[in-house]
């Protein structure tokens, strides 16, 4: 019989081999994500295809100076430090903002992140004479950072940005502005189409492979600077599948592990097959935006209120198989900017009919209005069935709505042009149905009510003009205390609701369907989602 020590020695000898085998056998965790877009969004730094695209090739590959907290689901996120560790407004000149930058951050190509990179990236999208200027990236982000007037490097780790006017909401613009590597652009022959195939940011993922319109492989960046936001999956494969049924089929067949926006019709089937439906409060609203121009039937507040009281929102949610929540204002009731509107939006046909009668409308003399709608598309939910539902509901209170149905791209044109434009007013169109992103104070509230944003200056589509609201918006812009700012925003929202500026119907819930293989996915209350939370 051999002594125990000899046995032990033998086992100790093979231990290193066992450990090395274990290491090499560590299987890569892969999540295949069926996304609703027809192509992979731009990978050069500023994603195209709207807010929803930032979760795919925006905040995965890149970081902003100020980030949005997207790894929590229980409450709305807030602004958090990104590549800037802190930011403050100059007390002497409130137009100047000083950003202190994070040290020790490296781009995926190994180059260092400094103030020069920030200035280079601002030039990339704002200075059309700079060699790195990219019209496409500029078009994506320029409308999102409208306040920037100028910028300068203070030192290697500090930059100063000056806004056109005093704008306390300016920090909310910065999660849209992402920083790409100047060194990589040089390395790729100063060619953005090459950078698109080999991008370099500072984000938690690197791009491993890109097949246009077919797939993009994001791999975990093991050297990511934010150790609390390390990716929980080694590889995420983004697969563009624009057709909703094809996405569902790919999920059921096991070709992908999760999909976004499953169609409401298949929700029961997915649930019964063991798939998990994840949804959350989402900054989105599906409204009819009224024209308040002279001649529009919606100028009478009683009519606007009556329309809001005529809709059974629970029935609309049922129509969506639960993939929506009732909207009783522009913002969700959980929003810090919802406030306490005096006008309580609810389903009350009797009250709606009474208001219509007061306004002089009856079965014999109905109100006739034309609404422009899209046949479908991103953010429009189940456009046609939902619009037909609204049409029937409004008919109950003697509002005869007819539709001008166009493609979504065409609807945007009508939207940008404003209610007064000939393409709208000239055709008798007095309301527009377009899903709105309501992610921040500007996007959710001020751009729709500020009289200075009437088209073509902005998207105050209906030419709403309320001096009291304009004064409040001015005050918000000069209020740097977040709590006071929230209070003022609530006041504006209360006025919006009390004035029944729109007919609010439902909020989207940004549904995702997950296969049982997906162990964790934190869905933030935002269009920005954090794919580092995805665990297989």
């Amino acid at each position: 019989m051999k002594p125990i020590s000899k046995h032990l020695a033998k086992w100790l000898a093979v231990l290193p081999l066992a450990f090395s085998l274990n290491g090499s056998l560590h299987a890569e965790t892969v999540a295949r994500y069926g996304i609703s877009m027809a192509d992979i969004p731009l990978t050069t730094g500023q994603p195209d295809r709207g807010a929803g695209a930032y979760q795919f090739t925006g905040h995965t590959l890149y970081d902003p100076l100020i980030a949005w907290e997207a790894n929590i689901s229980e409450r709305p996120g807030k602004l958090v430090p990104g590549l800037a560790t802190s930011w403050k407004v100059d007390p002497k000149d409130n137009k100047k903002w000083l950003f202190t930058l994070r040290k020790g951050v490296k781009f995926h190509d190994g180059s260092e992140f400094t103030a020069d990179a920030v200035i280079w990236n601002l030039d990339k999208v704002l200075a059309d004479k700079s060699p790195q200027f990219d019209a496409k990236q500029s078009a994506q982000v320029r409308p999102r950072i409208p306040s920037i007037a100028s910028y300068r490097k203070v030192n290697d780790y500090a930059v100063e940005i000056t806004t056109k006017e005093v704008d306390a909401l300016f920090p909310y613009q910065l999660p849209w502005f992402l920083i790409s590597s100047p060194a990589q652009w040089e390395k790729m022959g100063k060619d953005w189409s090459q950078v698109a195939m080999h991008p370099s940011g500072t984000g938690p993922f690197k791009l491993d492979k890109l097949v246009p319109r077919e797939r993009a492989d994001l791999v975990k960046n093991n050297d990511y600077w934010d150790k609390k936001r390390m990716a929980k999956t080694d590889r995420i494969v983004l697969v563009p599948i624009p057709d909703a049924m094809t996405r569902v089929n790919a999920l059921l067949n096991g070709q992908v592990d999760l999909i976004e926006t499953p169609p409401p019709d298949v929700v029961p089937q997915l649930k019964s097959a063991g798939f998990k439906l994840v949804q959350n409060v989402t900054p989105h609203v599906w409204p009819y935006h009224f024209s308040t121009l002279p001649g529009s039937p919606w100028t009478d507040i009683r009519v606007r209120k009556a329309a809001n009281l005529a809709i059974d929102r629970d029935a609309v949610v049922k129509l969506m198989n639960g993939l929506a929540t009732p909207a009783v204002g522009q913002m969700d009731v959980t929003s810090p900017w919802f406030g306490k509107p005096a006008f309580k939006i609810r389903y009350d046909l009797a009250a709606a009919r009474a208001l219509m009668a007061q306004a002089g409308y009856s079965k014999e003399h109905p109100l006739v209005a034309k609404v422009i709608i899209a046949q479908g598309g991103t953010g429009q939910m189940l456009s046609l069935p939902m619009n037909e539902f609204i049409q029937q509901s409004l008919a109950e209170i003697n509002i005869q709505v007819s539709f001008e149905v166009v493609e979504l791209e065409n609807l945007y044109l009508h939207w940008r042009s404003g209610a007064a434009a000939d393409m709208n007013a000239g055709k008798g169109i007095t309301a527009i149905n377009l899903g709105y992103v309501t992610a921040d104070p500007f996007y959710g509230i001020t751009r729709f009510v500020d009289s200075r944003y009437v088209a073509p200056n902005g998207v105050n589509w209906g030419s709403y003009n309320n001096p009291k609201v304009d004064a409040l918006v001015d005050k918000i812009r000069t209020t740097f205390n977040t709590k006071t700012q929230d209070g003022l925003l609530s006041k504006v929202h209360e006025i919006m609701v009390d004035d029944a500026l729109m007919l609010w119907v439902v909020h989207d819930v940004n549904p995702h369907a997950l296969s049982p293989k997906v162990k964790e996915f934190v869905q933030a209350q935002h269009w920005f989602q954090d794919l580092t939370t995805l665990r297989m």
Partner: protein
Amino acid sequence: MLTYIFKRVLYAIPIALSVTVVSFILVYLAPGDPLNAIAPADAPAEVIQALKSAYGLDRPVPVQYGLWLLRAVQGDLGTSIASGRAVAGEVMSAVGNTLLLAGFAAFAGVLAGCVLGALAGYHRGTWIDRVATAVSVIGVSIPHYWLGLVLTIVFSIWLGWFPAMGAGPDGSGAWLWDVAHLRYLVLPALTLSVIPMGIITRTVRALVADMLEQEFVVALRARGLSGRAVFRHIAKNTAPTVLAVAGLQIGYLMGGSILVETVFAWPGTGYLLNTAIFQRDIPLLQGTLLVLCMFFVVLNLVVDILQPLIDPRMGRG
């Protein structure tokens, strides 16, 4: 014969030029703004104007056409507004994928159509004829989109035999001629093949039935020729018409099917067109339309040249 070919090639030139005009102008007739492809929906007017200028969309349409045509004849179809990638590269990669799919669908559709049509023609009035006719009517009547979904549900989700979408485990760029990749072709090719199958079945049936009544067939039989020899004569006489019909059908298939390619997320020309249309990506739309229309022009030219080779009487006119 050479004069005939020369004439056909000459006729193709004005057709090709007309095609370029139509491809270019057509996209401007659709409502919407091409800059929606790149600018967010709420982009201010100055951003839109700067983009129009950057992409040359502020020039008069005839000038844009002239510049586009000049570049197109040199093989440069411009740059996609939406992706920033070269249109020629995008279209060629999509054409490759569609050719693969269309090739299989055409082979299956034409073969099945010829077999079913010949059987039905030879056995007019019997149950074989009725079955073949029913299959062909279903083939031409059934909506592609619906059939694709049904086939996916049955063979992909219930039975798990074939993938539900895509063009290979790692995308079309890494295509290999093995079972793992060919599995991706089966359902979309089958879906796409039913219309040509139906049309060719009906054409062949009618032709064969008609030929069997012809005096030369009676004469052939009277001379004691075997059934196989008679069939050869019938096949040769029906071939020019079948070829013309098959050519058109293959042309349609080469054009890609927006619906089938979208249902199966097959990255071909139909899928590309779908993307380009919804994004108002004018250069991509124009480039894709041009290439697809040229397919038709060239395919018709090939058919025109092949027909007199099979039937010399056609070359004499």
